[in-house]
């Protein structure tokens, strides 16, 4: 797995997880072993993380996600880049995301 996250890269949820919305909360359910620290871990994202996750659709570039969210949250592009890249790193580390197109 590459450590570098390019702004023109596109990501989508991995086939190794199932993302479900239960009572309005996003729950990431591992489908294969090795996603969590334990075999029975489920994961959830807070509202901001959820906003990022919804945009990881296999079509939208990281750059576009940052631009959209910076506008929506009235945040600086730098701050938003840190947040988005930070979450992408976490999700990639846990094999919850896959890159679909490398520029």
């Amino acid at each position, binding site marked *: 797995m590459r450590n570098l996250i390019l702004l023109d890269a596109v990501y989508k949820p991995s086939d190794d997880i*199932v993302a479900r919305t239960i009572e309005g909360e996003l729950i990431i*359910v591992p*489908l294969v072993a090795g996603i969590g620290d334990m*075999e*029975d871990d*489920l*994961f959830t994202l*807070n509202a*901001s993380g959820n906003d990022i996750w919804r945009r990881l659709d296999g079509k939208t570039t990281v750059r576009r996600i940052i631009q959209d969210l910076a506008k929506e949250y009235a945040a600086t592009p730098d701050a938003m880049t840190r947040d988005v890249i930070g979450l992408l790193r*976490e999700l990639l580390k846990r094999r919850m995301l896959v890159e679909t197109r490398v520029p």
Partner: protein
Amino acid sequence: MSTHAYNIRKASRRARRSSRNPVRLPHLDIELTERCDNNCIHCSINRPPQDAQARARELTASEWKGILSQAADLQALTVRFTGGEPLLRDDFEDIYLHARRLGLRVVLFTNARNLTERRADLLARHPPLEPVEVSVYGMRPATYEAVSRVRGSFREFWNGIRRLQTRRIPFIVKGALLPQNVADQDRFETWARTLPRMRRPPASLVLFSLRERRDSPARNARIRALRPAPEAVIACLERHADDNRRSLREFCSRFPSPPSRALFPCGAGCTPSVDAYGKLQPCLSLRDPSWVYDVRAVPIREALARLAPRLRRKTAMRSSYRSRCARCFIRGLCEQCPARSWSEHGTLDTPVRYYCHVAHAQARWLGLLPPGEKAWNVHQPKTRIQRMQSEILHAQPHPSRRRLQTV
């Protein structure tokens, strides 16, 4: 967004109870088959493994998949596969994978005999996300097979355990305490302590239910003969007296039973089950035909919507129930429920004398009742509960809490 705006954290593992949906389904019990490769002397449901008639009536894999999809649509997070022995189904893997692909966690109840290499590999690759729960009927071939009544079953069970251990698949064990295996109890508990997921002594079934389908007076007679006397139940509790007394007292203080004729204060309907033939029941045990819905004909959502108001409205009519159980403040301790009443007597509201005797013995053991007093005659049950609560507060802290305090 702030610096830590994104936040990935572990989600609660507890089944979620919807507060918004009128039809609630946090969890669904699924009885894949009533057939079992064991023929346990105390079993309340099992049918022979080759029972062609039962097999022909069972839902197909495709029908089970439809039911699982409905459960996921109703926001269930967990399903429990039980039986009979769910691994007797040739299509188990297909059904299991479908559940997992829907994002459902699976609790698997099994005797582990049919946990083949292939199936163990499947559970290792696609973890159920809940520990597999294995029933243990003895720690030696002679004791195990005196209960299971199948030659060679102990070896197969043990092979299944080894396959789970080799692959580090989380599992827990539970027992059934019977005259045939009581000599193994210490060995069972000692072994269970070595298992990574066993954080407390294994639960052992002691109060055996009669046949849930009321299908065999002969087997019922045998089950009745296996039931321990109330004094023997207390002797079981004495094995881990401090822990058991503490947890039972805490349970009683949290769940006092105000006088009520309502028959279903237990949550029946919130965690329903579907039997092997597609009948949705209010719970895993209640088989009364007038309380089940055929989910081959009715969607689960509709069945639950019809069931919920009936459960809320249903009250006891029988005078013996109204004069005793409806006024009894230790109902929380008692195994009496409509399902047990139905399997014993064919009605929902006939008190089951055996469970009543056991509950009273437990209440005496906890100090809630003096000898001879009946719980339904207690006029100030709150005072008893409060006195017990204050004893809990003044009691020595639990060993685990002591450790935490030291740290």
